[in-house]
């Protein structure tokens, strides 16, 4: 009996949009989580590409390449590359600050995905511009939830 009010409260929480934090994103753009920053601006792809398989064999390791076409940058540089996986338990999957030693704004790695979803690659430029490229990814297995 005691558990019910708590469950209802939790269900209420769960219905909040995951980008709820975006509401005050403008006020704290510099420190806001990446997903909030992304939700606060219109989606522009710019020179960014997120290379990720359309069908991933397993969510435990999905290879990704995030890269920005340098010719689209002009005098700007890419300061951060990130990945948002909205269906993951922790939606801000990856955010990496790029240093001056890099010759290309490019990141190659592998990430975990919890479910079939629209994975969003994000590039933050030196003038504050956000570029994003969303890709639908189908999964045959999840990384985050097991059968127990």
């Amino acid at each position, binding site marked *: 009996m005691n558990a019910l009010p708590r469950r209802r409260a939790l269900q209420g929480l769960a219905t909040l949009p995951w980008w709820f934090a975006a509401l005050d994103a403008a006020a704290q753009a510099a420190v806001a989580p*990446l997903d909030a920053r992304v939700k606060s601006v219109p989606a522009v792809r710019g020179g960014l590409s997120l290379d990720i398989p359309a069908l991933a064999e397993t969510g435990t390791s999905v290879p990704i390449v995030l890269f920005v076409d340098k010719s689209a940058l002009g005098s700007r540089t890419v300061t951060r590359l990130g990945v948002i996986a909205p269906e*993951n338990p922790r939606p801000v*999957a990856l955010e*990496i600050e*790029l240093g001056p*030693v890099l*010759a290309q704004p*490019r990141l190659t790695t592998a990430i*975990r995905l919890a479910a079939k979803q629209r994975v969003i690659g994000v590039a933050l430029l030196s003038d504050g511009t956000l570029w994003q490229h969303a890709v639908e990814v189908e999964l045959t297995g999840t990384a985050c939830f097991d059968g127990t």
Partner: protein
Amino acid sequence: MANEPTLGRNARLIVPPLVRAGEEFLVKLLIQHPMETGFRRDVNGDVIEANLLESLSMDFDGQPVFIARTMHALTANPFLTFVVAVKQSGTFSARWKDALGNAGSISASVRVAG
């Protein structure tokens, strides 16, 4: 010897031994780490304690190559590859720390020809 790990033998940092000045080359970093999410349970049904990397960065003679700000979704045994270019010989060094306080680092030297 230059490419031997300095600390934590459970990692690899791979760079070419010899490059031309300004030439683009790959730096590959592999860390053996379970990256436990805290969502898994063991055979008794008990939650396996989360243990993700909390910080991870790499520099070249003090100049940053990258600094990971968030890395929740990196797979177990994270593997990252970057394209870099350097003007003079130097040492790449990566360091990381996980939620249980285990820290590691690794470095590798690259020599610029001429």
